[in-house]
C-alpha cells in the first residue's frame, strides 16, 4: 500500500460496508429475511462470500452475518503523522468491501435490479455451435451481463488452462476517449485476454464507449460487460473464486488457498481508467487479496514492492505521459505493461493479414446482412483437406489461389471453395492429418470479420463486408494457415504449402480426393479400438488448475473436455515430449471388462500425487476416472431407475438427481473419485466402451435435450449398434421430467431396457 491509497481504500471500505448495511436493513424491512437471493445459473451461491466464508447465502436474512463479518474487518484510516502500519489493515478492508459489494448485488438481484438494465443493448451471439441463420434478433437484449454463469466458466476452463486464453483483464471506469476504449479492448483481444468491463467515471462507462463504437460484446467476443458501477467488479472476483472451486478442487471456506490459487494460477489484472475514487481503491484492495495487480491510466501512488501480488501491486501509467503518438499505440503500451506486471504468458502469432487476428475473434458472427461472400452453406460447397506429402513435394510458404477470386461475386453471394493444405515434416505421421486439419476451423476463425463453421466437406466460411473492405482476400486464408501451422505445430511440421481452389474442375477433382481420404480415416478410426493399441495417453493439462486430476485417454475414450482424443494426445506428445500428454504403457490387463490396467494404475498413482491409485477405464460404479472441471457432460447413476443420466453443461435445468449441472459439477470435479458420478466428453457417449462394464449406452435413462438434438445422428447410430433403434425415444429429458417419479413413469411407459437389466448395485 501507500498511505494515500490505504487512506482512500479504508475510507471507501467503511462507506460501502455502511451502505450495504443500510441496504440490507431496507431489504429486511421491505422484502423480509426469507426473500430469496441468488445469482443466475451458479451452484456457488454468492461466490465470493461462499468461497471466503463457506456460507451459502440463499435469502436476504443470510446476509446479516456477512455484513457483521465485513464490519469486523474494518479499520480506521491511517493518521497523517506517526501512523501505525496499514497494509494488512487495508487488505482486510478490501475483503470487507468485496463482502459488502457482493451482498449489495445479491440484494439488487432480489429486487430485480441485476443484471443491470441497459435499453438498446444487445449481447452478441451465443456459446453454442449453431448456425447464424437461427439467431433471434431480440435474444438477451436490454441487459448487461451480470455474473458469468457456471456453464460459461466451465466452457472457458480448458482455454484458460491450455493458454489459449492467458487471463482476464478487468477494465474499470471510462477511457479518455472512445477511440482509446476501443484500442485498449482490441489490444487485449488480440492477445486472447478475456475483457471484463465495469464501472464509470462521472456516470460514463467504458461499456457506453464501446457500445457507441459498435464493438460487439458478449461471451463469444471475450468481452463481458458486467455493469456500469464499481460494485459490478464483484462479478469478475466471483468468477475468480469459482475458478478455484471448480478447477482447483478447493472447498468453500479454504479462503487462503482460494486466494493463493488465484495469485499463482489465474492471470488477471485490473486496469483503472479515469479517476480512482475511494470505492475503486477499496475494491482494488480486495482484488489485491486475490493477487491481482492494478494499473491506472491516471496519476496515483505506485506500490512496487511485491509479495501479495506476484509482481508490482499498483502501477500508474498516466495516459498523457505514455510516450506514443496515437491512442492505439498508447493502448498497446498500457496493455504491454499490464501483462508484464501480472506475468501473463502471451503467445502471439503475427499473421500478415489486413484484419485483426486472435482467438478472441473466434466467436464473432458474420450476419447475412454484414456478409460480403460465403463459401459452403446452402448455396455452395466448401471443403478443407490437409495431407502429408513427401518433403520434396512441398515448397514451404507457397500459397496458390487457383481460380477466380470473389471480386465478381455479387455482395451477399456464394462460391465454391477448396482449401488444401500440404505439409511435410520428419516427425509428421499420417495419423496426425485429421488432428491438424481440425485446427483449420480455429485458425481461420481467429481473423476478425471471418466466420468459420464445420469441417471437412461441410465447412462454411463467411467474409464480412468490413473485412473485404480492408482488403481481405482468398490468399489470406493461406497466409493464416501457413503462419499458424508453423507457429503451433512447428515441432512436427517442417514445411507447409496451401492451395486455395475455386476453379470448378480442380475443385471437383480435389473434393473427390478429399472424400477418399475422409473415408479412409473413418475406417482407420473405426479400427482404432483400445485393444488394438498398447499405449494410452495421459492428459495433465488441467493440473495447472486441478493439481491431482489426470485424464487417461484411450482410442475409445476421449478427454472429458472433448478437446483431446487419443490421436490429439499422440500428436501433442510428438510436438512436446515433456508436455502434458505422456504415453502410458497399458501394461498387464487385470480386467478387460472393467478396464483395469497395471500401467494405467501406476501412472495415475503418481500423476494424482497419490490421491488415486486405481482407475477403471470402463466403469462408473467402481474406481471411475476423476475429472478436473472442464467436462462437457456429467454422467450420474440414478439408482431408482437402474440407469444413469447424462447432463450437458449447456443445460441449466433441474435433473432427476435433484441437482442442476452446476451442483453436480462440485461432486464430479476437483480430481475426486466418486463412484456413480463421472465427468465425460460428450463424444464418449457414442463409444462402444461407454460404461461398457456397467451395461453401456443402454443404461442411459435421461439425457439433456441439448445432447439429443445436437448429436441426433451420432446417437441414432449408437442406438442401432446397441440393437435398440428406438432407444433414444425411450430416454427422458428435462422437457419430459426432472424428478425420479416422472422418470420412472416415463421409463415404464416406454419400456426402457435399463429397467430389466441386471441391478447396478
Amino acid at each position, binding site marked *: 500500500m501507500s*498511505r494515500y491509497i*490505504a487512506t482512500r481504500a479504508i475510507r471507501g471500505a467503511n462507506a460501502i460496508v455502511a451502505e450495504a448495511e443500510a441496504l440490507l436493513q431496507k431489504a429486511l424491512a421491505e422484502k423480509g429475511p426469507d426473500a430469496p437471493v441468488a445469482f443466475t445459473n451458479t451452484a456457488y451461491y454468492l461466490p465470493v462470500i461462499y468461497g471466503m466464508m463457506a456460507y451459502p447465502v440463499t435469502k436476504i436474512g443470510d446476509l446479516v452475518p456477512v455484513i457483521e463479518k465485513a464490519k469486523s474487518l474494518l479499520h480506521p484510516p491511517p493518521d497523517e503523522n*506517526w501512523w501505525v502500519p496499514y497494509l494488512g489493515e487495508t*487488505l*482486510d478492508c478490501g475483503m470487507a468491501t468485496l463482502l459488502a459489494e457482493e451482498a449489495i448485488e445479491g440484494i439488487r438481484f432480489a429486487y430485480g435490479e441485476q443484471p443491470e438494465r441497459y435499453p438498446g443493448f444487445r449481447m452478441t451471439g451465443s456459446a453454442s455451435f449453431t448456425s447464424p441463420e437461427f439467431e433471434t434478433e431480440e435474444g438477451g437484449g436490454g441487459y448487461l451481463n451480470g455474473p458469468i454463469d457456471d456453464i460459461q466458466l466451465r466452457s472457458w476452463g480448458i482455454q484458460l488452462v491450455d493458454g489459449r486464453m492467458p487471463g482476464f483483464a478487468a477494465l474499470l471506469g471510462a477511457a479518455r476517449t472512445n477511440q482509446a476504449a476501443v484500442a485498449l479492448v482490441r489490444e487485449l483481444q488480440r492477445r486472447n485476454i478475456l475483457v471484463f468491463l465495469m464501472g464509470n467515471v462521472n456516470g460514463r462507462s467504458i461499456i457506453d464507449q464501446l457500445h457507441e463504437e459498435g464493438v460487439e460484446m458478449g461471451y463469444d467476443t471475450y468481452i463481458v460487460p458486467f455493469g456500469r458501477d464499481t460494485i459490478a467488479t464483484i462479478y469478475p472476483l466471483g468468477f475468480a473464486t469459482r475458478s478455484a472451486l471448480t478447477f482447483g478442487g478447493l472447498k468453500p471456506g479454504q479462503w487462503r488457498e482460494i486466494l493463493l490459487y488465484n495469485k499463482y494460477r489465474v492471470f488477471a489484472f485490473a486496469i483503472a*481508467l479515469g479517476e480512482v475514487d475511494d470505492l475503486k481503491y477499496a475494491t482494488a484492495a480486495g482484488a489485491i487479496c486475490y493477487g491481482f495487480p492494478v494499473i491506472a491510466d491516471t496519476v496515483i*501512488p505506485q*506500490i512496487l514492492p*511485491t509479495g*501479495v501480488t506476484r509482481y508490482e501491486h499498483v502501477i500508474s501509467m498516466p495516459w498523457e505521459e505514455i510516450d506514443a503518438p496515437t491512442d492505439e499505440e498508447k493502448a498497446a503500451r498500457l496493455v504491454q505493461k499490464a501483462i508484464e506486471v501480472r506475468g501473463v504468458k502471451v503467445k502471439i502469432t503475427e499473421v500478415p493479414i489486413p484484419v485483426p487476428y486472435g482467438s478472441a475473434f473466434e466467436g464473432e458472427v458474420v450476419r447475412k446482412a454484414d456478409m460480403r461472400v460465403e463459401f459452403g452453406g446452402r448455396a455452395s460447397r466448401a471443403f478443407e483437406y490437409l495431407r502429408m506429402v513427401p518433403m520434396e513435394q512441398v515448397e514451404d510458404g507457397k500459397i496458390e489461389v487457383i481460380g477466380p477470386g470473389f471480386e465478381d461475386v455479387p455482395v451477399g453471394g456464394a462460391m465454391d471453395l477448396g482449401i488444401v493444405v500440404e505439409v511435410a515434416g520428419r516427425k509428421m505421421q499420417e495419423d496426425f492429418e485429421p488432428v491438424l486439419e481440425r485446427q483449420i476451423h480455429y485458425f481461420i476463425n481467429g481473423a476478425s470479420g471471418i466466420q468459420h463453421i464445420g469441417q471437412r466437406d461441410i465447412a462454411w466460411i463467411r467474409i464480412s463486408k468490413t473485412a473485404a473492405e480492408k482488403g481481405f482476400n482468398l490468399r489470406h486464408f493461406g497466409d493464416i494457415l501457413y503462419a499458424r501451422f508453423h507457429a503451433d505445430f512447428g515441432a512436427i511440421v517442417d514445411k507447409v504449402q496451401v492451395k486455395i481452389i475455386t476453379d470448378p474442375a480442380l475443385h471437383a477433382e480435389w473434393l473427390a480426393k478429399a472424400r477418399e481420404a475422409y473415408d479412409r480415416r473413418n475406417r482407420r478410426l473405426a479400427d482404432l479400438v483400445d485393444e488394438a493399441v498398447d499405449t494410452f495417453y495421459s492428459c495433465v493439462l488441467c493440473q495447472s488448475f486441478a493439481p491431482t486430476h489426470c485424464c487417461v485417454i484411450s482410442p475409445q475414450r476421449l478427454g472429458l473436455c472433448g478437446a483431446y482424443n487419443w490421436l490429439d494426445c499422440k500428436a501433442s506428445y510428438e510436438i512436446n515430449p515433456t508436455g502434458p500428454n505422456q504415453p502410458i504403457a497399458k501394461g498387464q490387463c487385470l480386467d478387460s471388462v472393467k478396464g483395469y490396467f497395471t500401467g494405467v494404475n501406476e501412472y495415475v498413482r503418481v500423476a494424482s500425487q497419490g490421491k488415486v491409485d486405481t482407475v477403471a477405464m470402463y466403469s462408473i460404479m467402481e474406481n471411475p476416472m476423476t475429472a478436473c472441471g472442464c467436462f462437457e457432460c456429467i454422467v450420474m447413476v440414478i439408482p431408482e431407475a437402474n440407469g444413469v443420466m447424462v447432463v450437458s453443461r449447456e443445460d441449466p435445468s433441474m435433473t432427476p438427481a435433484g441437482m442442476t449441472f452446476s451442483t453436480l459439477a462440485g461432486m464430479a470435479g476437483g480430481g475426486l473419485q466418486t463412484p456413480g458420478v463421472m465427468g465425460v466428453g460428450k463424444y464418449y457417449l457414442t463409444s462402444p466402451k461407454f460404461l461398457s462394464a456397467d451395461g453401456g449406452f443402454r443404461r442411459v435413462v435421461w439425457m439433456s435435450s441439448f445432447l439429443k438434438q445436437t448429436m441426433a445422428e451420432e446417437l441414432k447410430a449408437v442406438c442401432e449398434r446397441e440393437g435398440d433403434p428406438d432407444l433414444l425415444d425411450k430416454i427422458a429429458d428435462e422437457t419430459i421430467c426432472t424428478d425420479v417419479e416422472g422418470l420412472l413413469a416415463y421409463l415404464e411407459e416406454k419400456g426402457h431396457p435399463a429397467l430389466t437389466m441386471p441391478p447396478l448395485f
Partner: protein
Amino acid sequence: MAKKKVRTPEEASRDAAAIALLERALQINAETCFYRADEITPCPIGADGLCCRFCAMGPCRLVGDVDMGVCGATRDVVVVRNFARAVAAGAASHSDHGRSVAYTLLAAAEGNPVYKIRDPYKLFEVARYLGVKVGDRPVEEIARDVAIAALGEFGRIEGELLYLKRAPVKRQKIWRDLGIAPRAVDREVVELLHRTHMGNDQDADHLLDQCMRCALADGWGGSMLATDLTDILFGTPAPVRAEANLGVLREDMVNVIIHGHEPTLSEIIVAAAQDPEIVAYAQSKGAKGVNLAGICCTANEILVREGVPLAGNFLQQELAILTGAVEAMVVDIQCIMEGLVPLANRFHTALITTSPKVKVAGALHLEFDEHRALEIAKQILHTAIDRFPQRGEVFVPNYRSPLVAGFSHEYINYALGGSYRGSFRPLNDAIVAGRIRGVVADIGCNNARLCHDENHYYVVSEFLKNDVLVVQTGCGAIASAKKGYMTPEAAMEYAGPGLREVCEAIGIPPVLHMGACVDNSRILTVLSQMVTETGLGDDISDIPAVGMAVEWMSEKALAIATYCVASGAYVIMGGVRNPLAGSPEVMRLTTEGWEQKVGGRLEFVEDPKEIVGRSLAHIDRKRAALGLEEYNPAKWGKSGDWRMRQVLELPFEARIEAVYGGRK
C-alpha cells in the same frame, strides 16, 4: 577524587536527555556508573578470560610466561570455562524468567482472578507445539496443561525440547547430528556448570559444544517459552504508539518507573494505576494521577502490550532518579544496579524490590506474590504516592521521541497481507529482489565503558542507509526509539530507496521493535518462517542476516549470541574487548570452527565502522550464495506517495488532468 580522566557528559553519551542529566550529576556531585567506569580500569586478565578462579589452588592468572594453571589447565580451557560460565548464567536468567511466567500461567489457569488468558489463539498454537490436546476443551483446562507442559520442558526426563521442531528441518538435523539438541532447559545449564568445575571437561571444542547446547535451551526453550506464555497471558503485541526518553516523566503526576525484565507484576501495576481509588489517592496528595514509565526490558514488555512510555535504557536507570521527579522505581529482576540505592537515598525516591529472587540492600522490599498481585501493586502505588509531597527540585530534560512498537512475528505476518493473505512472502520477495539488502538484528545492552547509545545510533543509521531492515529488542531498541528511528516517518528520512519503498508499502518504521531481550526468540521464529516461506535457502544460515549486540555487557547477551550462532547466524558483539582474546584457538573455534559446524560465527569487534563493514560484506556474500541479484539501490524508490505530493503542486487544470484523467 578523580585520579583518571573522566569523560565529559558529551563524551559519555549521545543521548540528549542523558547528557543533560550527566551535567546535572556533576552539578549536584552525584556519582553514576559513567563516572565509576572511568574510575575503574577493567581487569586486563579477566577481560581476556585468562583468570582461572575455578578452584582454591588459584586464582591462576595465565599471563606472560604462564600458560597453564596449577592443575595444568591451558589458556584455551580457562578462556572457554569463563565464557561457558557466562553463557550458563545468561541462559539461566532468561529461562528462569520463563519458568516464572509458566507458574503465572498456571495460576491464571487455576482461577487466579487477576490473570486472564488474553490470547487464546496463541494458547492453542503453543498447545499444538507442546503436544497438548486442544479440541473443544475449556480454555483454562488447556492453559493448565500448557503451563504444566512448559514447566516440564525445564526438567524433561528424556528426549529433547519440543520447540526444536519449530526450527527449519535442516537446522534440527544439524543439531541432532552434532549432538547439541538440548534435552531439558535446567539440565543443560546444570551440565554446563558441572563441566566447567575443576578437573572436568577439559577439551575447549567439546566444552564449546555444550555452550551451544545450553544456549539453545535458552533460545528455543526458556526464552521462547517466556515470550509465548507472556503473550498468552498479556496479549500478543500489535502496533502501539508511545514515546521514549526521560521527557516522558511528568512534573504534575506521581512518576513510577518500572525497571527490570518480568512483566507479571508490572502488568498489574499498569492496571492498578488507572484504578479510580489510586487516582483519587494521588489527587489527594496534589498530583493529577500516576504516570508509569519503564526502563530496560520490563519497559519493553509493557510498552509493546500496553503502550506505556519508555523512560530510557539500561544506562539511564540512575539518571531517571537524578531528575528528582521519580517517586518510586519498582524493580523486579536483572540489570538492576546496586548503585541505585545511594542515589535514591539522596532523593525522595523509593527503590522497591519485588521479586523473591532479588533483594537489594537498602531498598524497600515488597515481595510479589501472584495470588496477591493487585493488592501488592496498589501497595506499591500507595508508597509512591506517599512520596509525592516530599518531591524536591525537579529536573526533567524535555526530550522525548514518538515511536511505534509491537512487532511480534504474528503481527509482522499480518502486516504483510492482512487476515486473508498474511505471510512472510512480501518480506522474502523484498530481500530476493534487493529492495531490502538484508536484515540486521541489533539487540542487547548498553555498556558504561562505551559512549552511551553511540554504537547503536551509528550502526542503525548506516544499515538504514544501506537498505538493511533492522529489528531490535532490549536496550538497543530503546536507543533507536529515543533517536526517532521507530516512527514510520523515519523510513522517509533515514532509509535507502528500496527499504523506504517497502516501509511505505506496509506503513512500518524502518526499525522494528520486537520486544524485550527475552523476545529474541521472536527473531528466531521470524527467521524460521522466512526459511519456510522459501526463496531464501533452506536454513537460517542461508538468510542474508546478521545479529549483533554493539554495546553488550551482560552474560545474557553472550547466551543470546551463542544460541543465535548455533541457530546459524553470524553474530557480532561490539564495543568492548573480546572475552576470548586470551586464546587464539578459542577464537578460531568460535569463528571458523562454529561456521563449519553450525553455519554461524561469533566475532567480537570493537569498532562500529568495522561492524557495519563486516555485516554488509556478510549480507552480500549470503545474497550471492543464494544467487540473488546484486544489491543496487539505484533500481528502487519509484513507488510511494511522493507522486501525489508532486501533483498537489501542479496548477489546477493540470492537477485535475493528472488525477481525474481528461476526457474528450
